[in-house]
């Protein structure tokens, strides 16, 4: 005969209730372990999310630049001209190739964007660094019915795009230091027009002979735009460079889109073999930050797992002592019809209940501790760019993991005491 499950639960509950002190101590051990695990994993995920917002590296993008030292056509490297772009586009694993070209004509802004209430500092003129990009690179980023195409000669405002991150950096660092108004976040900026002087430079020697008034219209925001530059359609940049007699010595950079993230290293290797170099600045930073976050999270999670293991040991020790002290009670259970399997089940359920309670409390405790830590950070840390609202991320699997690990560890800890209990000889114990 094996007792019904309800009976085993009933007896386990009664045992836990009758030895409330041990139950609470064991549950507290499991709670601390589970809370630490959930807290650190959530912290790692949260910081990882923040790092990805700060360094939004696209795993499929490979940025190609001309090599510092090149043997030119001998090895197929040299300038990034249209022929080179065609060769790069034809590489296995490459889905698209988008050239970029620096605008070599200076552009400066001396007043605030139209339609934006902004306390532009009097007399301030800002040089606007512009990069021409293939519209394909920013496909889908244009909003508000605007297009990111060259408008042609005197055909109205020039469409431009900004990095989302620039707004954040501007609001958190530049605006406070200039004591000017912060920019609204998000797409409400789209459509704003910035009056500029094309050909004008704040460095007098670099100002062109011909200067004309124009307007730049913000048509979208994209993480594919370099942080401190303004993206303009490649055709516009080509046209302006040509109009001002600036001969293009090939493209500044070509961005390749790999078909799959795992193709990116293969494409990168092929690019190097062609004699070109890779601009890995942002990607390398993103990877470094990602690695640091992942390793730190792993280390903290291991530490938390160690705490859970210690909790399991504490539960094992406590339950073993408990089983030895309750040998007579176990013998009584045997006398009234419990099998060794029932007794084993009762002890395992006791461990499981402690682990489950500890896991649930730990998961809830981690959530509360995270809220507390976020509040503390909001009060103590300065408002730096990309500072997240929360440093924690709690997807459903994090508390589930904490509960499962605490439950598993407690049951694991209860295995030996359960075996000990099952071996109690009722006849000898009751004699």
């Amino acid at each position, binding site marked *: *005969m*094996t*007792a*019904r499950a*309800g*009976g085993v639960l*009933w*007896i386990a509950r*009664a*045992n836990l*209730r*009758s*030895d409330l002190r041990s139950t609470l101590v064991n549950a507290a051990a499991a709670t601390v372990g589970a809370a630490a695990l959930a807290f650190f994993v959530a912290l790692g995920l949260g910081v990882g999310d923040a790092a990805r917002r700060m360094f939004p590296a696209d795993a499929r993008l490979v940025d190609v630049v001309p090599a510092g030292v090149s043997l030119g056509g001998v090895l197929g490297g040299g300038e990034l001209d249209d022929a080179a772009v065609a060769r790069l586009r034809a590489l296995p694993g490459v889905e698209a190739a988008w050239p970029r070209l620096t605008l070599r004509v200076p552009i400066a802004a001396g007043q605030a964007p139209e339609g934006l209430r902004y306390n532009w500092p009097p007399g301030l003129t800002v040089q606007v660094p512009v990069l021409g990009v293939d519209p394909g690179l920013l496909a889908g980023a244009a909003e508000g019915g605007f297009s990111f195409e060259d408008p042609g000669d005197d055909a109205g405002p020039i469409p431009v795009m900004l990095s989302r991150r620039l707004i954040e950096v501007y609001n958190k660092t530049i605006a406070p230091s200039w004591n000017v108004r912060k920019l609204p976040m998000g797409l409400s900026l789209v459509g704003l027009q910035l009056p500029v002087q094309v050909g004008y430079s704040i460095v007098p020697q670099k100002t062109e002979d011909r200067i004309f008034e124009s307007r730049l219209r913000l048509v979208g925001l994209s993480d594919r735009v370099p942080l401190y530059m303004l993206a303009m359609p490649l055709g516009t940049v080509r046209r302006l460079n040509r109009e001002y007699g600036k001969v293009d010595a090939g493209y500044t950079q070509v961005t390749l889109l790999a078909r799959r993230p795992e193709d990116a290293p293969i494409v990168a290797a092929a690019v190097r073999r062609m004699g070109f170099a890779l601009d890995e600045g942002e990607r390398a930073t993103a990877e470094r930050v990602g690695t640091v976050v992942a390793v730190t999270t792993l280390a903290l999670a291991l530490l938390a797992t160690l705490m859970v293991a210690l909790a399991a040991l504490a539960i094992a020790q406590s339950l073993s002592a408990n089983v030895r002290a309750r040998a*007579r*009670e176990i*013998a*009584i*259970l*045997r*006398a*009234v*019809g*419990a*099998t*060794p*399997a*029932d007794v084993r089940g009762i002890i395992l359920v006791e461990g499981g209940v402690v682990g489950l309670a500890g896991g649930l409390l730990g998961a809830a405790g981690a959530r509360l501790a995270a809220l507390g830590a976020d509040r503390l950070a909001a009060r103590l840390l300065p408002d730096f760019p990309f500072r997240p609202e929360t440093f924690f991320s709690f997807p459903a699997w994090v508390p589930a993991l904490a509960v499962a690990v605490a439950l598993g560890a407690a049951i694991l800890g209860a295995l030996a005491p359960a075996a000990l209990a099952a071996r109690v000889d*009722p*006849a000898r114990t*009751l*004699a």
Partner: protein
Amino acid sequence: MIALRAITKTFHDGSQEVQVLRGVDLEAAPGELVAIVGQSGSGKSTLLYVAGALDGDFGGEAIVAGRSLRAMSERDRAELRNRRIGFVFQSFNLLPGLSALENVMLPGVLRRGGEPFEGLRERARAALARVGMGDKATARPARLSGGERQRVAIARALAAGPALLLADEPTGNLDATTGEGIIRLFRELAAGGLTVLVVTHEERVSRAAERVLHLQDGRLS
């Protein structure tokens, strides 16, 4: 109800072997109250645990409620104890964390395919009432006197509706008056058709039995 034939039992203490039972024969019919007397260490309790299917390591043949204990698995012996045998011990052996009612419910709680908890509770209440403890159902054992604890233990033994009641020095920890009450209860139970086997060294208990057997040198006489 119970038939023991040529029961032997040997304990091993390191390299030493101590033979406690040396061929015990015993038969008890339904409704019979049998007392087994003997000195301390004579093996009375050991015999009781063999008869009660608590100890499966013995020689000879033991038949309880028509079933041979030697041929039974651990699970089957547990089921037999649960359904057909009730135990009463000298030190009551109630679970201290449970109330009187919960202690009485224990065999039913462990029974597979048993009745719902509400039914068990009712039966436990009836068993407590039968031994005069109906008003102490919620009390923990620590709050009960020795006699009351023993009555709860008897109620627990009876709640499962056993055919055989095995009592090991049931009055050993009780005063004379309380002990008399317990003995009277055993006689009533036997009169109701229950086979009662009482191990004792007290004359007042053996006097109440229909048959008194002496365990000496590992044999009954």
